[in-house]
């Protein structure tokens, strides 16, 4: 394989993995924008989605696409539960209790799944049974292609929702000025619930897509969560475009790091990138400066 096709290969897998980070990070950012809460359980949404898929497809033996649909429905219901169980009782308190609560929720989810399914990582079938296609010396794994495709579709859907529907505008208004949104008659409590539902589904979708690659296990939650946070910080805390760009950037950096320097330490590059941003430019690529009002 010549140098160029090698690099393209690395870039491709970096983008694919980065897309997963971007999907989870997107959900995270939406929650931050509407409620100002950093959800430490976001990675667990991915894990839950993967396990829901596992249950539907591998255990109940339902058709593949029906399983995906049902798994997403389960995630939606879970999003509602999360909204009312974890966020709602603490919505008027400062950030620390809420942050700790989402941590608690994360532990709860992981260990419940552990109790139900056991610690063994389980395989999950890819969307397409074919391995992939080869173009000009570059092998494009079919699952990676699906991931890229679905992420692009999700981003497009999000764009459509936010830019061209009234609901999207109401969601944006709620995140820009909640009290004012109430004053014009927007039912902000519903908007927030919708945000949680949507974010849970996005996270779940990411889990369903990455499950075949990573194997489905409770360990997924922590790994994905950390990557999602890093993406959010790198892209700009609270910025939607930033979440996507940050995720892709992180994926690509890790991929090149693994390819050129060392595979076992590839996670370290992600940390390094995160640290550099936190110390040099904490507002990320697209974010605004962080300041406190007197």
């Amino acid at each position, binding site marked *: 394989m010549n140098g160029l096709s090698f690099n393209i290969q690395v870039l491709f897998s970096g983008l694919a993995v980065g897309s997963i980070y971007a999907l989870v990070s997107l959900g995270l950012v939406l929650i931050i924008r509407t409620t100002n809460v950093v959800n430490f359980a976001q990675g667990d949404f991915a894990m839950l989605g993967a396990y829901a898929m596992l249950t539907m497809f591998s255990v109940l033996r339902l058709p593949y696409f029906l399983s995906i649909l049902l798994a997403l429905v389960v995630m939606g219901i879970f999003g509602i539960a999360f909204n009312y169980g974890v966020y709602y009782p603490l919505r008027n308190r400062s950030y620390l209790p809420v942050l700790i609560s989402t941590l608690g929720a994360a532990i709860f989810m992981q260990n419940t799944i552990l109790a139900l399914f056991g610690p063994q990582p389980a395989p999950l079938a890819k969307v397409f049974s074919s391995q992939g296609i080869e173009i000009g010396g570059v092998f494009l794994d079919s699952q990676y292609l699906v991931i890229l495709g679905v992420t692009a579709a999700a981003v497009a859907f999000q764009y459509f929702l936010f830019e061209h529907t009234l609901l999207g505008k109401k969601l*944006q208004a709620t995140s820009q000025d909640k009290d004012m949104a109430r004053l014009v*008659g927007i039912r902000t409590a519903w908007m927030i619930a919708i945000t949680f539902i949507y974010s849970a589904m996005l996270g779940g979708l990411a889990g369903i897509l990455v499950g075949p690659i990573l194997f489905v296990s409770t360990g997924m939650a922590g790994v994905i969560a950390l990557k999602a946070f890093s993406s959010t910080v790198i892209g700009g805390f609270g910025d939607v475009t930033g979440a996507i760009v940050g995720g892709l950037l992180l994926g690509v950096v890790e991929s090149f790091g693994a390819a050129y320097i060392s595979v076992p330490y590839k996670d370290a590059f992600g940390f390094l990138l995160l640290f550099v941003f936190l110390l040099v430019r904490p507002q990320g690529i697209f974010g605004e400066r962080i300041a406190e009002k007197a």
Partner: protein
Amino acid sequence: MPLLELRDVDSFYGSVQALKGLTLHVDEHEIVTLLGANGAGKSTTLRTISGLNTAARGEITFKGTRIDRLTPETIVRLGIAHVPEGRRIFPGLTVTENILLGASSRPGLKRSAMMDEVEQMFGIFPDLKRLEGALGWSLSGGQQQMLAVARGLMAQPRLLLLDEPSLGLAPIVVQALFAVIRQIRERGTTILLVEQNANMALSVADRGYVLETGSLTVEGSPKELLGNEDVRAAYLGGRREKPLTTSA
């Protein structure tokens, strides 16, 4: 029966008692103004009416119904629109989108009907028409204020609460704004106007109240208030040789 009535209302801003036994009323088709120095409780009054603050004591009735325990989303559906202090337009949305969202309290409205109403708004606020695609944060103070009022009007309210619309605006913009306020009343909307700018407020109002540290001190017609020493005292303290002038 007055359109809006406050009876003996106490309200707190954090732990400070901002309103003490406040009693006032607004009749249909009036423009009533609430005057007073900063910190007198004017904004808290509007916030308590629209539901952002809850009255600790007292009654607020609108069209005969008690509204003092209702949420803001419900109150706006009953016909009270609040244009709060500081304009607070949605910075990341366009002018048109801001105006459209003003109709959020009227569900079931078809998109085409809403766009018609938006065009009507542009008729009242011609400056906004050429800015229809601009994002909220990029507008000047005066343009944002016009937008905030247009957004408030989209709720088709019986009563419009305006909080310090002239804040931070240049005098000539204030003139234009108050011309619009007169127009709104002519179209049939009742207005409760909170203003620090007593002169401008009294030039459009039918009646005025003066608030000082949460209680009413003076009440009357613009003529009565303009010549009143107590009004000036409420703002600037002490007696002066010259009374307030009514015109240039």
